[in-house]
């Protein structure tokens, strides 16, 4: 019998005692989990701030175009490279495009690409990662070898090659596809490791020994346990995806005119950084707000769902 006292940290002790209280207390509600997560999440001011900022950004991307009479693709040839003013809230580019309208449009694109590819990456990574962990033997060996192989070449290079061929208005879809196609490999490896350890839990063994079918075990015991990880990963994955998109578009390898994204506007701003810095400023601030708010939400979720995880580390 191991004496748990020894290793008890205070937090642990509080938790254990809370259990004891529960065991002698009144009948407890069954659906306490979600409420608990919400409470823990809301206790973090930074997480709440993240939600508020992200909500404002989404509203801005959806309805921002009604706040200006300029379209992102209708240049105002009468005011080229003009600083912010009542007419053009964030100023205009050298070509006379309204930066405000560009940012509204670009933010929408970045959000869209970020969310879609993060969802897709999580899906692919979850399927591949768990499958590789579940099939033992040669399937696992070959699977791991392929995953290793895909990690040899930096994914950024591969993504850049794929999206190069795409342009025009469907370019953002190609970009999403490209980010997904080579962005899932690392996550898949993480999920595989997690699944491997879940597979060895006593209650999974117990279910197997009871004769519960593998699929039921995955569904009832494993997916719910992976679920929290997947949610957190999807949220934080948005940051990674937005960053990839920005980098590619900034280099001129992603979204191209006539379509626009925040990275594309940054690229426009780079050339005129000495003369019209305002072109740069608005999309930069939008990007920082976007990635920071999502990251804060992700950190908050992580602490709320899994209070024992050490946030901040790499996978």
């Amino acid at each position, binding site marked *: 019998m191991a004496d748990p006292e020894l*290793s008890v*940290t205070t937090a642990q002790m509080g938790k254990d005692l809370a259990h004891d209280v529960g065991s002698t207390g009144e009948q407890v509600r069954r659906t306490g989990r979600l409420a608990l997560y919400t409470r823990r999440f809301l206790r973090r001011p930074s997480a709440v701030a993240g939600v508020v900022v992200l909500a404002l950004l989404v509203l801005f991307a959806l309805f921002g175009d009604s706040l200006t009479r300029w379209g992102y693709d209708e240049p105002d040839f009468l005011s080229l490279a003009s600083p912010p003013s009542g007419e053009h809230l964030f100023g205009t580019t050298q070509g006379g495009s309204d930066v405000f309208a560009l940012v509204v449009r670009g933010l929408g694109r970045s959000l869209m690409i970020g969310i879609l590819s993060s969802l897709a990456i999580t899906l692919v990574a979850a399927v591949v990662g768990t499958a590789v962990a579940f099939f033992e033997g040669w399937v696992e060996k070959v699977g791991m*070898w392929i995953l*290793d*192989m*895909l*990690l*040899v*070449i*930096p994914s*950024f*290079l*591969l993504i*850049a*090659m*794929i999206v*190069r*061929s795409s342009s025009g208005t469907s370019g953002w879809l190609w970009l999403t596809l490209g980010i997904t196609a080579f962005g899932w490999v690392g996550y898949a490896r993480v999920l595989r490791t997690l699944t491997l350890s879940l597979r060895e839990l006593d209650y999974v063994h117990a279910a197997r020994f009871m004769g519960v079918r593998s699929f039921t075990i995955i569904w009832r015991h494993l997916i719910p346990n992976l679920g929290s990880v997947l949610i957190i990963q999807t949220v934080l994955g948005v*940051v990674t995806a*937005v*960053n990839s998109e*920005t*980098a590619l578009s*900034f*280099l*001129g*390898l992603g979204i191209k005119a006539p379509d626009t994204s925040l*990275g594309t506007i*940054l690229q426009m*701003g*780079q050339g005129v*950084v*000495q003369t019209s*810095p305002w072109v*740069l400023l608005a999309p*930069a601030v939008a*990007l*920082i707000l976007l*990635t*920071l708010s*999502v*990251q*804060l939400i992700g*950190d908050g979720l992580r602490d709320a769902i899994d209070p024992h995880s*050490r946030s*901040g*580390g*790499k996978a």
Partner: protein
Amino acid sequence: MVRFLVRRLANYVVLLFVAVSFTYFVASYFMDPRSNYLSRHPIPPKASIDLSLTAANINDEDPLLGRYWRWLTNIVLHWNWGLSPDQDPVGAAVSGRIGASLQLVTLATILSIVVGVAIGVFTAIRQYRWQDRVLGGLATFFLVIPTAVLALFVVLGAIWINKGLGFRLFYVTGLHSYEGSQFGPWLLDFLQHLVLPTIVLTIISAVTYHLTQRTYLLDTMNADYVRTARAKGLPLNKAIRKHALRTSLIPTAVNVAFSIASVFTGAVITESVFAINGLGRYFVTTIQQNDINGAVCIAAFAGACTLAGALLADVVVAWLDPRVRLS
């Protein structure tokens, strides 16, 4: 030991071969060198386009497997990585740019490791105190901010400072502009160029070292053996510094081993913003010019660096961790 290294090396060679071949096919499928010519005015005659493309072994009308075979045999037999659409050998172009990347990234890598690990240790020991919270918040900020944004803000700041000073303290493009042959001015000039990109690169990777080192140290700080060290008579701070820190540096050393490889591959965004002709910027050029051979050559070099880093990491672990070394 030697047999193990040879076996692992063999596995890596196979991995690299498959990965690079895969990249070649991806590049050949998605990149379209013919479009370079079709966008010219006037459009050159098809025969002349085909001639140039075939000469560079990137003609999409030739069978892909044939092109792949020629590309492969040239590399294996002559160490010839092929030609760009402009008929320049890409091998020479790549090796010529490694130097610039090296100059740019080396200092930043060293700085980021030192600064990042130091801050990581500092904040871990002060977990949940204001120093940890402030630095942690900053780290989160720099972790998520896109590199391009950070780099451009640094440029803006430098321009503002230059304006304020009335002379050019910082250069925002290139690595060198001094033409003479004296070492002193050359170094000063080099540093004036190097400061800004180094700041960007250092911040970006120091943040990662900070956060991971903090996690590693927190994991080991509460270990039983730190308590044993205190029970022996080491004060808490010394016990952490001697026992927990040493153990927590092993995974960091592994990360360092990996990142040494990336010194050679340069930094795509930073090189583009500061107009430094390193490998990263060259990669952007190859993609823009539909230079299949160039892009694949860079990918192969990057892959080789990744694997060298992995091998180095293995060796580092075996060297630092007695549990691995002696088993």
